[in-house]
């Protein structure tokens, strides 16, 4: 696979290194000449010392034959432009962007970036998992962020307690598939009676989240 990595910071550097070790063809673009030379010394002549936002240089780096373009610079606006240029100007099939401001995630998705990696969101997610909350926990995002795996921690007053999966109105585009009880993961059976402390694992479209919350935990206040 030919992967074009734009941005030679820590993320771009280690990404390129890992990809090369897995046998992929990699070109890394880094606009800072000093940094580009430093990476080239370590990884070989895979570095193009130009700005990946410039259409011309993106073309020279081989964007038109790249299977994947991944934009991992520290600037959201640069990452968006790199992915959009790759997608619409060079017909790259798959684009991946790093997003720093979590509020940009929806915009990026809406504007056609295939995959969004948000370090800020990931750290937030980890912090949330350590705090007992009456909310749904986001465990993972799939399908470029359209789908997510979430966990609902049932409380005493949760409407699902004492009921079976069939008693609940599960929104379309959403599926409950497992439950963690006393630390043991169990497949969710139709005769499972939910009780306080159950952690219900579901996969669903992001827009179903509110309905799912209502069914499992209760109306959001």
């Amino acid at each position: 696979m030919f992967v074009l990595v734009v941005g030679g910071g820590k993320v771009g550097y280690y990404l390129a290194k890992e990809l090369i070790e897995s046998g992929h063809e990699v070109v890394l673009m880094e606009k800072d000449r000093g940094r580009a030379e430093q990476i080239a010394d370590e990884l070989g002549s895979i570095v193009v010392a130009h700005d990946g936002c410039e259409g011309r240089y993106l073309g020279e780096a081989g964007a038109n034959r790249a299977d994947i373009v991944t934009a991992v610079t520290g600037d959201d606006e640069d990452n968006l432009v790199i992915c959009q240029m790759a997608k619409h100007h060079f017909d790259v099939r798959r684009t991946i962007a790093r997003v720093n401001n979590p509020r940009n995630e929806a915009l990026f998705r809406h504007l056609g970036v295939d995959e969004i990696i948000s370090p800020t969101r990931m750290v937030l997610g980890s912090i949330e998992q350590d705090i007992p909350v009456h909310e749904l926990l986001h465990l993972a995002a799939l399908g470029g962020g359209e789908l997510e795996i979430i966990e609902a921690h049932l409380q005493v007053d949760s409407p699902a307690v004492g009921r079976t999966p069939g008693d609940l109105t599960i929104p379309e585009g959403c599926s409950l598939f497992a439950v963690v009880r006393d630390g043991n993961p169990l497949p969710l059976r139709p005769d499972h009676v939910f009780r306080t402390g159950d952690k219900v694992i579901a996969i669903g479209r992001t827009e179903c989240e509110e309905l799912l919350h209502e069914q499992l935990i209760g109306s959001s206040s």
Partner: protein
Amino acid sequence: MKTVIVGCGRVGAVLADTLDRAGHEVIVVDTSTAAFDRLPASFGGNAVRGDGTDEGVLRRAGAADADLFLALTEGDNRNVIMAQLATEELGARRIVAKVNDPVRAAAYADLGLATICRTTLMADAIAGFLGLPMSGMPSVLPPGDLHHARAHRASDDAPVPPDAAAPQEA
């Protein structure tokens, strides 16, 4: 007409003053308060300090539902992201983004943004003055074959609003 101008450089400041004097509602956003020194003392619009690529900043500045949104900072990519933010999230009716890289300017015109490219604009102005051949690249690009429907409706065909000089709404 409500106009939002992000980037209070020379061009941004001149346009802000012109629109303000013509009686329009003008909001100018820049990351540096020193940039607002370019506005004349008579300027009656709002000058807000903040990052124009941040949706929260733009909303707090009152930039939602603008009739006209001009992205005029020195960063092509910043202009491009905020122009798309303005159409997709903030309901701007018409936008113009300054994009100085001619390749990017053409690519974003294809994606539905009206773009102005200072590089070809200046090069052709100089070439025209000296009687040299023109670059052959357009400087003002209307939104072309569009990829989002909302941007299509928002930006029409002309990159510059014909009613910019005459106040029609308060």
